């Protein structure tokens, strides 16, 4: 039976792991290769490295990191952050990454999804979507937006780019469907409303997305405890859960979370 995946996410800046709250206020949390191995030993199913370096020399640092990780890590890993062109994708994959995740570049130039998935296969193209709820009044239905009734009120989900800094004014559910049509092999969905809050994932968003798209969904942002991960994988219908803080600071190990999921009937690799 296909197992649900637990994916620790390592935010990397200048070759070091950092993790912010709500994508701001970063704290240094260690060496990426060491952390990657520790998660591998704990039973992580995959890892995601998100490069948030904005400097000029970033590309070389990232490729070095991918090569070093690839030598010691024998589970799949994804690299994202600042990937703009097909040639960026090629260099990350040939350095040893299994998948790349693209976000801003995909929004600005959706054709990159099509070209990259044709060249390298859909399975290695993860489209990452950062979203934020836009609440609307009872009688309001903005054109081109999918408005849903949620527990917190009527809303649609706007897409954000540039690391969550800039709203696009584009419906996230429709963007997700388009990305899949263009060849995205997986969707990594982060909610800016929930990121860093430890209040749980945006379950209503996940449930609607998994109803609409046929590719695996990786839930991200908001995990504060194993119960939140359980909800994302069951009620939310996600195929994998990505989390950072709850693992980085030793609050829970990957194995503890997986044991909890197994006790609640979720198939996991133990």
């Amino acid at each position, binding site marked *: 039976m*296909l197992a649900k995946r637990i994916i620790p996410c390592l935010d990397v800046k200048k070759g070091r792991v950092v993790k912010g709250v709500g994508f701001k206020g970063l704290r240094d949390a260690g060496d990426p290769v060491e952390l990657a191995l520790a998660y591998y030993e704990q039973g992580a199913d995959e890892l995601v490295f998100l490069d948030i370096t904005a400097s000029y020399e970033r590309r070389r640092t990232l490729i070095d990191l991918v090569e070093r990780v*690839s030598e010691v890590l024998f589970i799949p890993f994804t690299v994202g952050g600042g990937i703009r062109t097909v040639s960026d994708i090629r260099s990350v994959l040939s350095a040893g990454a299994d998948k790349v995740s693209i976000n801003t570049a995909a929004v600005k130039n959706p054709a990159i999804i099509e070209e990259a998935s044709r060249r*390298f296969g859909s*399975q290695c193209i993860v489209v990452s979507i950062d979203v934020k709820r836009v609440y609307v009044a009872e009688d309001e239905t903005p054109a081109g937006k999918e408005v849903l009734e949620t527990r917190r009120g009527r809303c649609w989900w706007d897409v954000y780019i540039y690391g969550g800094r800039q709203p696009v004014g584009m419906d996230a559910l429709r963007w997700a469907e388009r990305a899949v049509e263009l060849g995205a092999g997986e969707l990594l969905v982060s909610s800016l409303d929930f990121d860093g809050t430890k209040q749980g994932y945006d379950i209503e968003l996940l449930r609607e997305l998994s109803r609409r798209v046929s*590719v*695996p969904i990786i839930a991200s942002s908001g995990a504060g405890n194993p119960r939140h991960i359980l909800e994302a994988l069951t009620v939310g219908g996600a195929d994998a859960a990505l989390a950072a803080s709850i693992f980085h600071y030793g609050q829970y190990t990957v194995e503890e979370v997986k044991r909890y999921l197994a006790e609640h009937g979720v198939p996991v690799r133990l």
Partner: protein
Amino acid sequence: MVRIAIVDYGVGNLKSIRNGLRKVGAEAFVTGSVEGLKDVDAVVLPGVGAFGEAIRNLADMSGVLRSLVDAGRPLLGICLGLQLLFTASTEGGFHRGLGFFRGLIVKLPSRVKIPHIGWNTLEILNPGCVLLEDIPDGSYVYFVHSYYAKVEEGVNVDAETVYGVRFPSVVSKEPVFATQFHPERSGKVGLRVLENFVNYVRR
């Protein structure tokens, strides 16, 4: 040390299989030419890309691969590498394969999410298979694929996996072995599969 050539037929990540084979004690290197296959102890056909393009890029090498196998050199196909060893594939048209195993490569049923990405279990049918030594039944291994092999009678299926359909995840006809999963991405279980292959090469 055994010398293992990893065949480069175009695109994608070959580092992880190379690193995996090195980790279990082989001298592994990547080659895209017929000359690179000279004096090797074994060959790995890795698993990246699309069938049609891969088989086109392999055209020059197919004869050499056949003679290496005829000479008893072990060959391991991984993922797309497994599929390339079959008679033909329906991925993006109809393409003839290398024909080491009889069967057709077809798409996974649409009732499940495609690609099949993630960790799934091995149901071991032949515990005596060289690749599966010390691998417990029900072990999780990592899959990434949209197509699978519909084997004809007479093909040795050593392990199966269920995802919408029951498909072969390990097939063999010594000295040719193939896995639909990625041993180089399957953690400790996967490294053991690679080690088993290297031990077989060394025998």
